[in-house]
């Protein structure tokens, strides 16, 4: 037992409608990187929130170093030696790195002590920091470093990392892995939460696989492959997706030319001279790390923002850059923004009512200002059946659906009207692998029927799987396009980090 640091025994936690953890039992060894692998909704987050004192388990025991461990708040958890780095950073954007670090300390510490400690941590674990830089000026990778240093100041035995690579460039991921290895050498333990199979194999020693709140398996990673892990994680086999260049017609139907846009806002990224063309039947991907102008570009593509400084958007030989969203829909352009709750759908409204957010000329939902409820309900039922949305019915509130189901519903709503072009941002963000696969499949199918698609995504694997062309957005600049089948990942990674040889 001496090499075990944490024993998790029979942890059960249920919420009003789901059991998030069912008798979860496994051990975590000292000085190792231990992965918890599972789809979104498998119960990983619930488990780590229990460990970090954010949730209380209904049943079960946790032992830390063979002693009973029970905490009611993150502060207590930190005192007992457990630290956590969240997927979404909790930093004050307007303050400097140093100020953020000072705010994160639980106990009193003199300023010179702090500086000594920081220097020590930075050099030992490959975590260089510019203490005086404001947080806004940092890249996602640098922000994450601040979070890690902040936790390390408290000298934790166990460090929980929740999906740490989701916002990083490939190069930043490499550097994070160096840090993690250095931490493990200093007899710390890392609990690594992820749904990315390659990461488990390359960095972790042991892996615990969760599905539907239960532990499927805990084993060493040395005898696992991405395939075997995926089968255990999903419980089923998925077909490989294929993109076909033959379906693309030699006809440009959507062209963005020299779009520039200034916002005068430190929290928004100005767009600089963005140009690209999409051909009929083509899937065009825009890669990039979050916060490099994606949402600003999306607003301009959808018409939610028509205040551009210069440039034009042409669709079917019409200049549309001054058209609002409804006028663009009238031309058979459809869009799905990144955020489901409160942007592409209203959580408080029923599924049926949510249909009305996006109306195309042929829908026939409204006559003389009066809603034709039967038509709307029929359309909703159709989307629910066609896209296998799991819901009690079209009168269920959008908020009652899981992320994946709602996303299938929203995308189904948009593509049921057979648009000529679909502009979609982060199509599979935050949803489980099953829904992810079916959404990617329907996008490919749509393009085969002659619809052009623009996909903005942070998920490089996704873009490589489904697109024909990829360009990279960095600090409001869009790179030239590359054929997805030919481009090297390293090349894209460098562009995502702002390096253009």
């Amino acid at each position, binding site marked *: 037992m001496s090499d075990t640091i944490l024993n998790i025994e029979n942890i059960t936690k249920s*919420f*009003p*409608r789901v059991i998030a953890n069912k008798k979860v039992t496994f051990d975590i060894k000292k000085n190792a990187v231990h992965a918890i692998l599972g789809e979104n909704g498998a119960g990983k987050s619930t488990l780590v929130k229990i460990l970090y004192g954010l949730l209380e388990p209904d049943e079960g025991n946790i032992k830390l170093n063979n002693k009973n461990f029970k905490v*009611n708040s993150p502060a*207590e958890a930190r005192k007992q030696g457990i630290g956590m780095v969240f997927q979404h950073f909790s930093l004050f954007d307007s303050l400097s790195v140093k100020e953020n670090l000072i705010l994160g300390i639980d106990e009193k510490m003199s300023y010179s002590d702090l500086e000594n400690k920081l220097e020590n941590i930075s050099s030992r674990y490959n975590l260089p920091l510019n203490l005086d830089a404001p947080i806004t000026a940092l890249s996602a990778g640098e922000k994450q470093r601040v979070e890690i240093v902040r936790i390390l100041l408290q000298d934790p035995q166990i460090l929980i990392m929740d999906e740490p690579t989701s916002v990083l460039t490939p190069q930043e991921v490499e550097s994070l892995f160096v840090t993690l290895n250095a931490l493990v050498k200093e007899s710390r333990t890392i609990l690594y939460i992820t749904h990315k199979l390659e990461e488990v194999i390359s960095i972790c020693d042991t892996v615990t696989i969760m599905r539907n709140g239960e532990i499927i398996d805990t084993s060493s990673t040395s005898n696992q492959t991405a395939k075997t892990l995926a089968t255990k994680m999903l419980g089923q086999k998925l077909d490989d997706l294929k993109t076909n260049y033959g379906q693309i017609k030699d006809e440009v139907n959507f062209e963005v030319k020299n779009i520039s846009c200034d916002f005068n806002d430190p929290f928004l990224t100005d767009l600089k001279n963005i140009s690209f063309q999409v051909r009929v039947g083509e899937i065009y991907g825009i890669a990039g790390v979050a916060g490099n102008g994606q949402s600003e570009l999306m607003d301009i593509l*959808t*018409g*939610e923002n028509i205040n551009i400084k210069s440039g034009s958007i042409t669709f079917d030989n019409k200049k549309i850059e001054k058209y*609002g*969203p*409804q*006028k663009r*829909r009238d031309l058979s352009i459809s*869009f799905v*923004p990144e*955020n489901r709750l*409160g*942007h*592409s*759908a*209203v*959580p*408080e*409204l029923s599924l049926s*009512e949510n249909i*009305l*957010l*996006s*109306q195309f000329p042929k829908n026939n939902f*409204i006559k003389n*200002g*009066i*809603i034709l409820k039967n038509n709307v309900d029929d359309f909703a039922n159709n989307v629910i059946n066609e896209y296998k949305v799991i819901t009690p019915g079209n009168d269920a509130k959008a908020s009652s659906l899981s992320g994946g189901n709602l996303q299938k519903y929203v995308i189904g709503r948009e593509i049921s009207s057979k648009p000529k072009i679909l502009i979609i941002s982060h199509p599979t963000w935050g949803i489980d692998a099953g829904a992810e696969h079916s959404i990617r499949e329907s996008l490919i199918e749509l393009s085969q029927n002659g619809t052009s698609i623009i996909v903005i995504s942070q998920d490089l694997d996704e873009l490589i799987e489904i697109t024909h062309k990829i360009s990279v957005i960095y600090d409001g600049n869009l790179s030239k396009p590359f054929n997805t089948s030919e481009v090297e990942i390293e090349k894209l990674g460098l562009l995502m980090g702002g390096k253009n040889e």
Partner: protein
Amino acid sequence: MNSLLPSIVSRSQSSGIMNFFVPIISIVLTLITGSIIFVLLGFDPVYALYTFFISPISSTYGISELFVKATPLALIAIGLSYCFKNNIYNIGAEGQLTMGAIFGGGIGILFHDTNAFWLLPLMIFAGAIGGALWGLIPAILKTKFNTNEILTSLMLVYVALFILDYLVVGPWKDPFGYSFPKSRPFSESGRMPILFDGLRVHFGLIITLFLIFVSWFIFSKTILGFQLKVSGYSPKAAKYAGFNQTTLVFFAFAICGAFAGIAGLAEVSGPIGLLYRDISPNYGFTAIIVAFLGRLHPIGIIFASLVIALTYLGAEDAQLFLQIPSAVGFIFQGLVLFYLLGAELLINYKLTYKKLL
């Protein structure tokens, strides 16, 4: 051991049934608190509550008076729900009511010696226009300069009241009125027809019921009502859908102003018959309570307006029979709102006591 101070935690699901019961629970709690206040003041609570809530409506005349008071409250509250559904906090209905009374009443004064069928409709129309124009001022300020409509609409209440004040002591003063601050009386055809002989309940009630029905139709059956709802729940989704939010703000303010304006005109051309300083016992503010007590739903608003109208009548009876100041009526209105907001909070959040180690 538990800590002494509870913390407020969001409930994962709010109960639909409790949502329905909130207004009823608030009213019951108000009655209980009211009894305690009566006991503290040295009155028999049963007798006091009877005087307050039963005796005012134990005669035909009393019931008619209940409808007289409920009419402006319900009409303004349904107008306010256009704004509140859209998350626009127009609290200046009192000013819009006053402006409606000034515009419509102005027509009445201009034609004080004319008797014609077109006079009342013209006055109602002018009242609606006056209220709507007054409501559009905060709408313009909000959409053009991004000002907070709570402040601007409230301040415009006082501007409207001072304009009315100026008119009735100045240019519109009754030349035969012995210098009292009031206008000439309107002609007979400038008055709201009485519905039943000997009672004061008037045609304004019919107008109110009609507009409530129209509003129900707009809210539940039309794309316009849907747009108001969406932009209230989530402005980003409304933008995504391509709904014009500036238009919706203008629409909500204009409708609310027009309804309040009609309510004001109905007051001066109904029970009052002329313009003077105190045409409204804060109907425009009290209607805010009515709108929320009625959960912004047309049927709910009808019931809520009757309940709140009763507090007006009860206060008068209490003053008469118990010698309690009529301000007690406002205490009851305040209590209802207090419990309503409290119950609303507890539906979506719960109190928990954190364990201390």
